[in-house]
């Protein structure tokens, strides 16, 4: 039975290779293999539903065992990975069919990324974890740069920052290894339990940098907007929906697998009964939520908008995980799942639009609602989920996070989280309005909805937003069981929500949903009628404040956020981009100025280096070998 863990890990890699080889025979072989193996992985993953398996040793290195394991929390992420990968493979068949030259190794890389992420969540020791982490980095790099010239630059930034993050992690891992000579999670936890506060903090910070880069928590997010938007359509949801969750997963493992809130509290001061480290993480997450939301609002590019939204949403996940309370952590984990679903849905839907129109520029689009009604409907569900409106899934997890913050009386953070949600309304409205409402440009007269292969994954996800929105207990079942393993108090839940014991009172989503569905449908019908009745010019849509028209007033005080957003953007530019650029420039100067003076091309100089080395040695000898 447990050998299945190794088989599951191997499945995507084998599938990838077979897809590559089979692809040489015929492209349909490639598709079939890719679908089969990603589906197989998903099935294998489902086998482990709510199972806990510890320590399947699959090798050993430098005296440390290499271990695979699973538990419900891992499974949650495993499910995200395998399910999303499967859907994305299917979508890809529809989306990327035409681009035959590049397709050679696309599915191989897709499956490799899946395999790497499976490896990460199944890892039971840090070497395995780190190994698959690195594999994930470079395999996903190759996926990103499929997108053409711009994506190459984006991918470059991505891989460099990934490497930096990974090496930060690496130092922490090496420190732990040196201390314990074993990197199995349990041993790491035991080691940390007996370590000084300084050591613990260093470990967590160094690991955290690695996770935050991947999770794109500000200020380490700068790679994400470029990478996610420039990547090919099916890859974006993989990155935004799945890959960045690996950072959250890692954070969870470190905070609650290796440490524990109690332990962390024992060795460092606390704020609001939260260990200061967690508190800092919370603030970073909250800042991510707010700033990224503002940046999302101003995007002209649909995928860029969604990318910034991802930064904001992953902020909720991290914020929840960092609260340290059962409810908050559960909320964070649940939001990870939810975000994967609705962000996957949104990216795929936008991908479908791009597939038909060839553009992702919001100001070029409009009025597609009649041409692509199914896509429109799915996307509508997605933005509702994202905005955190009941009855769809985004609502429940966000609600849990708010509740947790409220319980801890962390009001500032709560407000920031609210701001994020409110802002989300603005950008999701902008998204759906610019694409589907307004006037249809002439060139899109003949646009049809996308083929079934692309519809299918979109609708699976759309259904899931509803399923998890109405039946949060489905997820809670896993999350609560898993969290128990990490020492959290179980929270009470039912299939439909939370019975009691919360400051907000009992939450029964089904009831709220029933009401809201009716209200929403009514509003939608109204809205459709309204938009039909009012002819707007094509360029009436928001253009990130570029074109200021009287209509702007009409749109939710957009201008106020815009100017605020500008300030933030410039601050961010000043901070992160400048630092990044500064180092690049510094390296250039270092190379150009100093290296040139070393490798002058002049043989005399080169020879004098030899003499200098010997002279130093001679001086050392004359001083009796006591130069140091």
């Amino acid at each position, binding site marked *: 039975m447990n050998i299945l863990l190794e088989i599951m890990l191997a499945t995507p890699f084998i599938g990838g290779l077979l897809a590559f080889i089979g692809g040489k025979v015929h492209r349909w072989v490639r598709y079939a293999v890719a679908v089969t193996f990603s589906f197989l992985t998903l099935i294998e993953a489902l086998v482990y539903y709510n199972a806990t398996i510890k320590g399947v040793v699959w*090798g*050993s*290195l*430098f005296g440390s065992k290499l271990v695979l394991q699973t538990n419900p929390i891992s499974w949650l992420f495993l499910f995200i990975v395998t399910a999303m990968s499967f859907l994305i493979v299917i979508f890809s068949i529809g989306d990327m069919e035409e681009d035959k*030259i590049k397709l*050679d190794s696309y599915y191989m890389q897709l499956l490799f990324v899946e395999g790497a992420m499976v490896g990460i969540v199944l890892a039971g020791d840090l*070497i395995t974890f*780190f*190994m*698959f982490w*690195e*594999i994930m*980095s*470079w395999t996903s*790099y*190759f996926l990103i*740069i499929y997108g*053409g*010239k711009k*994506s*190459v630059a984006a*991918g*470059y930034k991505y*891989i*460099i920052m990934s*490497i*930096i993050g990974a*090496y930060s992690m*690496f*130092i922490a891992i*090496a*420190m732990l*290894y*040196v201390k314990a000579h074993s990197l199995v999670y349990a041993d790491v936890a035991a080691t940390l339990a007996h370590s000084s506060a300084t050591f613990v903090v260093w470990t967590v910070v160094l690991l955290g940098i690695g996770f935050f880069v991947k999770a794109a928590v500000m200020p380490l997010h700068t790679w994400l907007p470029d990478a996610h938007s420039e990547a090919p359509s099916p890859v974006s949801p993989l990155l935004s929906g799945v890959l960045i969750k690996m950072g959250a997963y890692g954070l969870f493992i470190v905070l609650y697998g290796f440490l524990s809130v109690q332990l962390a509290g024992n060795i460092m001061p606390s704020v609001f009964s939260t260990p200061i480290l967690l508190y800092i993480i919370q603030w970073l997450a909250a800042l991510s939520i707010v700033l990224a939301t503002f940046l999302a609002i101003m995007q002209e590019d649909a995928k860029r908008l969604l990318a910034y939204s991802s930064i904001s949403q992953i902020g909720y996940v991290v914020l929840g995980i960092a609260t340290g309370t059962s409810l908050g952590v559960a909320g964070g984990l649940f939001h990870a799942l939810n975000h994967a679903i609705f962000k996957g849905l949104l990216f795929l839907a936008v991908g479908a639009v791009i597939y038909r129109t060839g553009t992702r520029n919001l100001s070029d689009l409009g009025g597609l609602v009649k041409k692509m009604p199914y896509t429109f409907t799915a996307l509508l569900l997605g933005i509702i989920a994202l905005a955190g409106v009941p009855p769809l899934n985004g609502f429940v997890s966000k609600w849990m996070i708010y509740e947790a913050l409220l319980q801890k009386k962390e009001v500032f953070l709560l407000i920031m989280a609210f701001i994020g949600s409110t802002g989300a309304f603005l950008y999701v409205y902008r998204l759906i309005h610019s694409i589907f409402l307004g006037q249809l440009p002439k060139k899109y007269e003949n646009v049809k909805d996308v083929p079934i292969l692309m519809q299918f994954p979109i609708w699976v996800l759309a259904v899931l937003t509803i399923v998890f929105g109405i039946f949060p207990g489905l997820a809670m079942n896993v999350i609560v069981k898993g969290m128990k393993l990490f020492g959290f108090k179980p929270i009470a839940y039912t299939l439909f929500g939370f019975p009691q014991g919360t400051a907000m009172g009992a939450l029964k989503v089904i009831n709220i949903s029933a009401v809201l569905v009716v209200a929403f449908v009514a509003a939608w019908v109204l809205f459709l009628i309204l938009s039909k009745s009012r002819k707007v010019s094509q360029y009436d849509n928001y253009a990130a404040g570029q074109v200021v028209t009287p209509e702007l007033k009409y749109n939710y005080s957009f201008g106020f956020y815009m100017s605020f957003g500008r300030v933030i953007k410039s601050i961010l530019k000043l901070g992160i981009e400048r630092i990044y650029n500064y180092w690049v420039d510094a*390296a*250039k100067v*270092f*190379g*150009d100025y100093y*290296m040139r003076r*070393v*490798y002058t*091309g002049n*043989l005399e*100089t*080169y*020879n004098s*280096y*030899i003499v*200098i*080395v*010997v002279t130093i*040695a*001679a001086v*050392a*000898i004359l001083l*009796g*070998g006591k130069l*140091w």
Partner: protein
Amino acid sequence: MVNIANPILLVVIPLFFTFLIALSGSFLKSGVKYLPVIAFALNLVVSLALIPEVVKNGMVIATTAGFKPPFAIDMAVDKLGLFLSIIASLLGFVASVYNLFYIDEEPQEKFHALFTLLVAGLTWMIITGDIFNLFVAFEVTSIAAFGLVGFHRDKGAIEAGFKYLVMGSIGGSFLLIGIIMLYAATGTLNIVDIAQKTSHLTFQQKLFPFAMIFTGLGIEGALFPLNAWLPDAHPAAPSSVSSILSGIMTTAAIYAIIRLTNTIFDFNQIYFFLMIFALLTLIFGEVSAFFQKDIKRMLAYSTIGQTGLFFFAFSLNTVNGLQGAFMQMVNHSLSKGMLFLVVGGMIMQVGSRNIDDFAGLGRKMKVSSFFLAIGAFSLMGLPPFFGFWSKLKIIFAALQNANAFLVASVVIILLMSVVEGAYFFKLLQVMFFGKQEKDVAVKEASYGMLFSVVVLGTVLLIISFYPSPVIDFMHKAAAEIINKNYITLALKLGGL
């Protein structure tokens, strides 16, 4: 039948074929190109035949002239020496196969003779048990390399060759001074014998021969700032030669330093200084590589960086550190050797060494590009390739008894790994996703050239995915060296 598990054959077989090439060059004409292939195939057989012996006894010693050391020169192959000899033979073999399709310029017989001699000299440096013999091997290697660097006879090749010659010649002289100092102090030239007779020397007295030998070998071993010849010479040479120079020469020279440091110069005070050398080498190599437009120059600077890395690991002076160094040496030899072969094929097709001209090769030369990516990944230390295991080991070892300096070193190493990633990924993305502006008819390299690349790549992949035997072997090798088993074994086996 003669027992072929004799290390001396590793030197003598290539020498035999070298002279055979000279003899038959005039009537076999370009047919001589097959002789190196035979030579290194035989060498490969011999080095594989040595494996059971070395595993059993820990070392194999062969004397010459029928006298016992220290009265005659002996060849002593310990675990690591064996491993490096295998790699040298393997690289020699694949590179000579590569040469069958790569070298079309005259005078061919001179090229093949020198090429054979170069690899023979390197193997010789690795296995000799006599310190003056080490100097001779050093010179065989150097002088063969000087000629090969100048093989293309263009302006750059001549300039590079000359610079290399002058610096290499100075290095040889310093090496010889160091050897003479040891001879003056002990009256013997056998490494183990010297090691046993230096006990009466003070640290100060040992430091000078060490400094001299270090300078000499450091020039060949590409240690900063003695390595200025390298970025000129490696690119100027034909790619198969660059492959050997980058792949084995630095390794062999550093191995010689390691062996001498752990037998004759058993002092601990110098390692801090060696570490500084190593870090400077690493930094200057990697950063310079980042700015290169010429792909071979970039790889050459990368070699400097890699050397810095494994020299750093060696200067940790622990079993783990040494193990990491050995692993990295193996990784570097295979990966860099392969990269130069791949790049040679690409340059042949594109007709340029400028990275920008490599745009789009990923689609036109798929196999080559694939292996280039693998080599680059392994050098960067990305999993699941072997370079990952070695980098892991080195960092683990460095933090073992960490002080602030070591932690800073680790940060530097990782920063430099980022730089390494920066230039290798730049190269990869140009290759795979760049647009070729010039309209060049580019084909995949010939099957023969690919064969060499594929063989090395396969070996690299095998040890990547099944690293434990190598890792364990390296651990034993490192432990033997640190525990001074080299001397004990040599004494037991009659190496003295």
